[in-house]
């Protein structure tokens, strides 16, 4: 994490793209595993958790980066947690106002966004050292990357484990759901599958880069 570039000469689009793909928080950095595994049993829960995290990440990154000259190093972690917890509480009330069923489905995991290491990680490694604009782009990229990853997990688990996607039936009645995919173990299986794919792609990219470099010599 600390090794990520935070200097001002990288283009703004790079701050946005890196979280979506190259440094995807779930599939590459393997951060925020607790919500990623626990509430990705359906696509709807996964999307809601992803968006809630995106909101908290964006708001806390923006506030922390705009206050970065005002907060002394000695008390920075306490203030970051305070700011993050505030936005998590707000998200909690807003979800209850939008839908009680959704709030029931996400359960304790909304409050646990406070301790999602992805959010404190971005605050400490990025927002505290960069401008508001860059921090917002970084949060948007990382948050959308997290949402996409959760949605990829949730969609696979719901399709195989329930035969539906966003509650819509996909198969003939004869389809026998793989209940294991909705259970916790199914979360690990699905995550393993996606990690395998991401690692295979990264390896292929490296191999191609090496080949191209050799061809140039």
């Amino acid at each position: 994490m600390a090794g990520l570039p935070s200097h001002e000469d990288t283009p703004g689009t790079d701050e946005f793209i890196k979280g979506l793909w190259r440094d995807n928080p779930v599939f590459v950095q393997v951060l925020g595993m607790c919500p990623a595994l626990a509430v990705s049993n359906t696509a709807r829960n996964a999307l809601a958790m992803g968006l809630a995290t995106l909101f908290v990440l964006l708001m806390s990154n923006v506030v922390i980066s705009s206050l970065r000259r005002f907060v002394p190093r000695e008390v920075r972690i306490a203030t970051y947690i305070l700011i993050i917890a505030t936005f998590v509480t707000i998200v909690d009330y807003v979800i209850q106002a939008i839908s009680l069923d959704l709030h029931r489905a996400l359960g304790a995991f909304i409050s646990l966004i406070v301790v999602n290491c992805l959010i404190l990680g971005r605050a400490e490694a990025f927002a505290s050292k960069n401008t508001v604009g860059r921090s917002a782009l970084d949060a948007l990229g990382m948050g959308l990357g997290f949402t996409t990853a959760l949605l990829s997990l949730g969609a696979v688990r719901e399709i195989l484990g329930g035969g539906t996607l966003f509650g819509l039936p996909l198969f003939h009645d004869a389809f026998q759901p793989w209940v294991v995919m909705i259970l916790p173990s199914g979360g690990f299986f699905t995550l393993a599958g996606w990690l395998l794919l991401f690692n295979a792609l990264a390896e292929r990219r490296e191999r191609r880069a090496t080949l191209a470099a050799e061809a140039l010599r």
Partner: protein
Amino acid sequence: MNGMSASAPPTSAWPMYRALVGIGLLCGLLIVSVFELTRPVIERNQAEALQRAIFQVLPGARSSATFRLVGEDRFEILEGKPDGAPLAYAGYDADRQLVGLALEAHGMGYQDVIRLLYGYSFAEQAVIGIRVLESRETPGLGDKIETDPAFLANFERLDVSLSDDLTRLLHPIEAVKHGTREHPWQVDGITGATISSAAIADILSQSTSWWIPRIRRNLDDFRIAE
């Protein structure tokens, strides 16, 4: 420690106080404002969810009234906010005739407390519907208590007839293994969700043994709103 913090001069106390107290104050204001803004909507959502559940467990009901238990044996219409006294929700049909009562019950499931609402019909002397309000049963297995049609069919007419002196149930509700239901007061379990389905039967058994004699003896109290 890295070189940067070694060379930086120590911060005096004032900026630290200022940052922590200032940000704390702002965060506090923000949280309380959002809470106050969303509270009416959340309360309305909760009331609507309860109302929907009441109509689900009392088929045929078109309106409802909330009653509180006063003392040991009298019910009166709840005015204002609930004060902790046990509540019963009476449902009335389109002609304002009493359909039955919706009652809340809770108890331990497999993972955590299960909270449910069930409907009681005076005419049938039976539980005529249930709806799980809150549960954290295992997805795909235990949560079948909310979705399995064969299991929910148990509660379309689950006998809770009273003894002649109206003091106790003739046959308390009991759980039986899947496929072995013989009597109208038995709950046919779910294979693969034995504990969760038996928990529902236990919760209902305890709640009906307590509630049904009381409400049956005071049937006329609920007719006021007709």
